[in-house]
């Protein structure tokens, strides 16, 4: 798969993983640790601008991620992402700095030295290349997981997402190799409207409700996501939408890394399950003996 010799990976956590997405960061680190992978954090990284920079300025949307790419290049590392939004922005910026003379010029003008060639890899892609089934110490058998991709992981126009845009299977493969019963369902790549959650909550709640309805219908015990914005939105708005759609029970929303870390033998106490708004522990208890 890789033609160029692989450089070491440096983790780009992104801002959400240091705050609302903290269970994601904890479980990413536990997953890497369980696999014996030494991954340091990208030094002095800054915000990628995610859903706000492109809203007001096309150049800013490239320059904010570009500083992180320049740091990675100077350190001789590639970038490992976990947040779907950061991944999307870093991949797009890397592409544009190479493809657009204007973007490269703006970067130079802003004092950034980036010569190209840094690979941005999502943790799902990295795990997909490892035979996880041989490393499983606590099988996830019996947990029915609805893999939820959302938008940004699979839809990176012109660059390609981490898997097929309409029918991705990568999360099913990764969690399936940990023993999980992945369910087939509609809604895997539907947008949850997280960026409108604070500003048009009714619209976001409507999108969340549609996704939850599909996952419920497929008999899922939980949703697994690779995006801190999706997780927060689906976790937080469930109060509003589950009542509306008349579901009997709320649906826990976990980070896929919480499941991989559990399967690889990490202690559930280190994975942030207590920080979820919709109670996750009933789903996890059966496994965490």
């Amino acid at each position: 798969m890789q033609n160029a010799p692989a450089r070491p990976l440096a983790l780009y956590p992104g801002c959400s993983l240091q705050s609302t997405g903290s269970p994601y960061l904890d479980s990413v680190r536990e997953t890497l640790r369980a696999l014996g992978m030494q991954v340091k954090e990208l030094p002095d990284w800054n915000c990628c601008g995610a859903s706000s920079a492109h809203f007001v300025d096309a150049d800013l949307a490239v320059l904010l991620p570009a500083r992180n790419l320049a740091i990675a290049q100077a350190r001789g590392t590639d970038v490992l992402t976990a947040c779907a939004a950061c991944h999307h922005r870093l991949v797009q910026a890397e592409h544009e700095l190479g493809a657009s003379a204007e973007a490269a010029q703006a970067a130079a003008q802003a004092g950034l030295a980036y010569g190209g060639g840094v690979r941005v890899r999502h943790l799902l892609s990295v795990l997909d290349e490892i035979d996880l089934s041989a490393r499983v110490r606590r099988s996830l058998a019996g947990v029915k997981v609805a893999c939820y991709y959302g938008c940004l992981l699979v839809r990176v126009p012109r660059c390609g997402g981490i898997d097929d845009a309409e029918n991705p299977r990568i999360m099913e493969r990764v969690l399936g190799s940990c023993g999980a019963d992945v369910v087939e369902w509609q809604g895997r790549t539907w947008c949850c409207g997280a960026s409108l959650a604070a500003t048009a909550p009714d619209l976001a709640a409507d999108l969340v409700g549609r996704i939850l309805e599909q996952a419920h219908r497929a008999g899922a015990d939980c949703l697994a996501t690779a995006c801190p914005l999706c997780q927060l939105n689906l976790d937080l708005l469930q109060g509003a939408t589950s009542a509306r759609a008349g579901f009997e029970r709320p649906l826990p929303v976990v980070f896929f890394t919480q499941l991989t870390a559990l399967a690889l033998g990490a202690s559930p106490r280190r994975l942030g399950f207590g920080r979820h708004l919709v109670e996750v522990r009933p789903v996890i208890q059966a496994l965490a003996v």
Partner: protein
Amino acid sequence: MPQHEAPTQPSPRDSSWPLAIEAASGERVRLCYGCGVCTGSCPLAHAMDILPSRLMKAVQLGLRERVLEAAAPYLCVACETCAIRCPNGIDVARVMDAVRQASLARGGPPPRAGILGFHRWFLRTVWMFGRAHEGLLSAGHSLQQGRLRQDLATGLALVRHRRLALLPHLVRGRKEVRRLFRTTGKGGGR
């Protein structure tokens, strides 16, 4: 319901505008033949005052004023479903970006000030710390919208579940980050 009535007066056209939007977006708007796949795929189309495919047509026609007054680009969440499905390879979300940025450059009251305000608060915290501060941006936005009381319960639930970092994470190279903002003329996260 969104309104799609035909205007009673012929709208003024700016024949150079389609090219300006093509340059700003990097997308070949002229390739659009109006199939409507973007509209059919858009999760927010039902809330938009101009449907994505109609907005594309309006840009092609140079109906600048009509497009710049539209709320649709403020409701676009850049989920890119339109972009991966467009048979002509047009990233419609990028056209939405370019149109929205043109409406901001023109000045005047934005069609959805609340949504714009949220993104400005986001960028303000990035300007300040080098990284986004979710607590401050939510509180700032909430205060500005006069919704602090309604939003307080959500904030407290997040704090109670230890989901909000209260102290900012400071980037050592904040000056470098601010220089990025200044290069784009967006100093102070404005």
